[in-house]
Structure formats: structure tokens, C-alpha cells
């Protein structure tokens, strides 16, 4: 269980602080929604370690995550865009998910097959469609094998058809690999299709939308 308990954060001392408390279960998608500027990305930055809360607790199965630097957090990121390095091939991008010093084309190919991109590994990332790019980023997430997946509006740049396909893939992968997936989105249909639990940020606080 990924659990945030009253994570408090403010950008400037004079600001009213954010207060975030929520739980995300393994194998399920937990959605966070809210108006633009409500603090959705701030929450993801706190979970990923890019921001440090002034107080509160963040644990994964009783392991305290707060002392861990971003690179050591058990977290993978999937953003709306800029998930890939355009000068690298699909394989090159996926390989970045492997632990340092480790190589293994078979693992990369298997990850690409799992996200439905077999045969496209040699393609430069710059020539892939938006949906294919998100799949490559998901393949990299598979290799990273981190138990928490943070999704920041990952389907926003996709057309409706691709959006549905990638959304389904995210749901399947989360279940299959037991990821604690946290989806930040302001699209009600994404949340309805994917999320087992839904929180909403109102007045800088998370509340259970159900």
C-alpha cells in the first residue's frame, strides 16, 4: 500500500499549505483530479521526490519514502509528453529503464512485445506516433520494475482511439505487475475507465471523490 499521511507543502512561507492524504493499492489505479492549478502536479512531485514536504509521512508497505532522493524512489514516471529522447531509437529509450551496467536485448524486446510494439524497436523515437511513444515509455517502466507508477495527464495528447487503447494497456499492466498507479487527470472518462479509487483536490486538500 502506498500511503500519504497529511503531506504538507507550500512553495512560499506566506502561502496556504497543501495537505495531501491518500492511499493507493497495489494492482489498482488511484485517480487524482482537480481544477487547473489545484496542485495535482505538486502532489506527483512530492511523491516522486522532486519536492520535499514540510511535514507528513509517505510510505510504501511501511517503508518511509521521504528520505529517498528522486533517483532512489521506487517510482516510474509517465508524463503527458517529453517521455522519450527523440534522438534514440525505441530500444535505446527502453534500455534506459534497465539498471546501470545491465544489458539485455531480450528483456527490451520482451517489454516492447508486452506493450504491443514488436518490430518497432529500431525506429527512432522521433518517428513514432504519440500513442507509440507512450507505449515505449510504458515498456521502459516495465524494465524499471518499480512498484509505483505516477501518471501525469498521460493520455491528454492522444486522439480518442489511441487514448482508449493506451488507457486499457495502462490498466492491464498495473494489474498484471501489481503497480500502485497514481493517475493525475482532469478527464472524467479516463478516471471512470481506469480508477478504482478517486480523490479530488479542493482548496489545497485531497478528499475522497466517492
Amino acid at each position, binding site marked *: 500500500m502506498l500511503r500519504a499521511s497529511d503531506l504538507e507543502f507550500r512553495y512560499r512561507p506566506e502561502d496556504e499549505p497543501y495537505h495531501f492524504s491518500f492511499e493507493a493499492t497495489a494492482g489498482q489505479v488511484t485517480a487524482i483530479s482537480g481544477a487547473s492549478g489545484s496542485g495535482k502536479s505538486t502532489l506527483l512531485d512530492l511523491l516522486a521526490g*522532486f519536492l520535499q514536504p514540510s511535514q507528513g509521512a509517505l510510505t510504501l508497505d511501511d517503508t518511509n519514502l521521504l528520505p529517498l532522493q*528522486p*533517483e532512489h524512489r521506487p517510482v516510474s*514516471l509517465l508524463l503527458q509528453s517529453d517521455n522519450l*529522447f527523440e*534522438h534514440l531509437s525505441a530500444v535505446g529509450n527502453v534500455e534506459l529503464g534497465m539498471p546501470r551496467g545491465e544489458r539485455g536485448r531480450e528483456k527490451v524486446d520482451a517489454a516492447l512485445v508486452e506493450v504491443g510494439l514488436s518490430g518497432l524497436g529500431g525506429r527512432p523515437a522521433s518517428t513514432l506516433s504519440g500513442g507509440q511513444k507512450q507505449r515505449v515509455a510504458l515498456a521502459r517502466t516495465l524494465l524499471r520494475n518499480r512498484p509505483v507508477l505516477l501518471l501525469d495527464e498521460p493520455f491528454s495528447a492522444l486522439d480518442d482511439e489511441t487514448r482508449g487503447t493506451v488507457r486499457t494497456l495502462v490498466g492491464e499492466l498495473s494489474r498484471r505487475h501489481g503497480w500502485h498507479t497514481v493517475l493525475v487527470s482532469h478527464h472524467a472518462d479516463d478516471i471512470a475507465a481506469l480508477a478504482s479509487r478517486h480523490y479530488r483536490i479542493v482548496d489545497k486538500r485531497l478528499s475522497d471523490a466517492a
Partner: protein
Amino acid sequence: MAICAAVIVLASAFTAVPTALGRSAQPTWSDNRTARALQWLVLALSVLGFALPLLSVLVDGVVGGFGRVIAQPSFWQATATSIGIGAASAVQTLLLALVLALGRAAAANSVARTLLGVPAYAYLAVPSVVLSLGFFLLVRNLGLPLGAVSPIVVICANSLLALPFAMATLAPPLDAIARTKGKLLLSLNMSGWAQFARIEYPLLGRDIGLMLALSFCFSLGDLGVIALFGTQDFQTLPLLMYRALGSYRNNDAAVIAAILLIGTIVAFVGLPRLIERLAHAPRQ
């Protein structure tokens, strides 16, 4: 120069130019006749101001007797010294610029970012002769053997003087990478050499080549630094040219100038392409 500047100011008053940062859209308006005429005038003046002296150098150099100059051992010695110092200076500039620009791009603190820019851009305000004299006095005050340290000092001085231009070339793309990919790189636990080799180097291949060419040519054409440290045994092509002029061998000077010009053109055209090709070469 003053005429060019005046015309540019006038021309800019007649036509609007998008000034937003980042990628700008193509203008949807057409220039009026006055603006077009001024644009052509500016272009013609710039081309004339640039091309005429260079053409003179090439013409005088070609008719000046290449054979006589290249038959002199001192010419080849100076050429080797110029290339060696230029190459070493370019590599040193690259290393310094990368350390500063990567440090700036990665710095979260805005004060640290500003401070990391100071060492580079400070050299813009320093005349090369002043820096050279500073190095000269330093060497003398420290009691170092001038002959032995001269090449090192010339390399260092040329490298520092080229640093602002190197930073101006490398810092913006490195900043852009840090802004757009910073979180991703951090979450992928990429840093140091692995990050540079896989991400920055391939993306910056052409910029690095351009910066190396700039620094190399800067050093190749330097006279301010070498004038203080040069000797009969340690001279570069510009110093050789200056000495030829001083002894009224104008034709020899023109030949050397033409060779310097050709060298800089080759470096400017070749190095960016070469480094870009190397940066994009498939790696295992």
C-alpha cells in the same frame, strides 16, 4: 560599422519583428518597399564589409608566392604550433564550458546559476592584451621559466577568452534539455558521464563542433596573447605574419593571412559536421 548600425536601427523601425522567446511563427505580413530596400542595403554593406578585406587577403595571398613561404621551415613550425595550440585550447574551452554549462543547467538555485555564469562571461569584458599581460606578470612574479610555460599559458589564455562564446553556444541547449527532460533524467537515475554520453552529447553534437571550431579559430587568429609570449622558437602563424609585415615582407604576410583564412573556413565548415556525425554514430 557605424553606418551599418545606423541602417539596422532604421530598418528595424520600418518592420515589426516577433520578439517572443522560443520558436517564433513566420510573419504573416509582407515587408513594405522601404523596409525591403533597407534590408538589401544592410545586406550589401555587410557583405561588402566582410567580403572585400577577405577577398584582398586571398588575392594577395595567392599571387604573393605560396611556394616561397611554404618552403620556409619557420612556416611549418608556426603552423604546427598554431594547430597544436588551437586544438588544445579548443578542447580546454570545451571542458570548461561543459562543466560550467552543465552545472548551471542542473543548478536548482538561481543564485548558483548566476554565479556559475560569472567566470565565463567575465572574459567578455576583459581585453585579450590585459589578460595576456596578467598572465605574463603572474609567470614572472612566480618565477616560472617563461620558455617552458609559454605554450601552457597561451593555451589557457586563448581558452579563457573563447569561453564566453562557448558558453553562449552550449548553455542554451543544455538549459533546454534540463528544463524539458530534467525530471525524467532524475527519475531514470541518469547522471554524470552516462547522461552526457547518451543524452547531451548526441543532442549537442553540432553545437559542440561549432564551439570547437569557434575556439580553435579564436586561438588560430590570436595575436594579443602570443605577442607577449612568442619567441623565435615559439611562434604561431599570426605572429609570423606580424613579423613578416614588420620586416616589409607584405607578400609573405598576405600568404600567411590567406592560409589562416582557409584554415578557419575549413574548421568552421568541417568541425560541426564531423562532430555531429561522430555524435550520431551508432554505439554499442
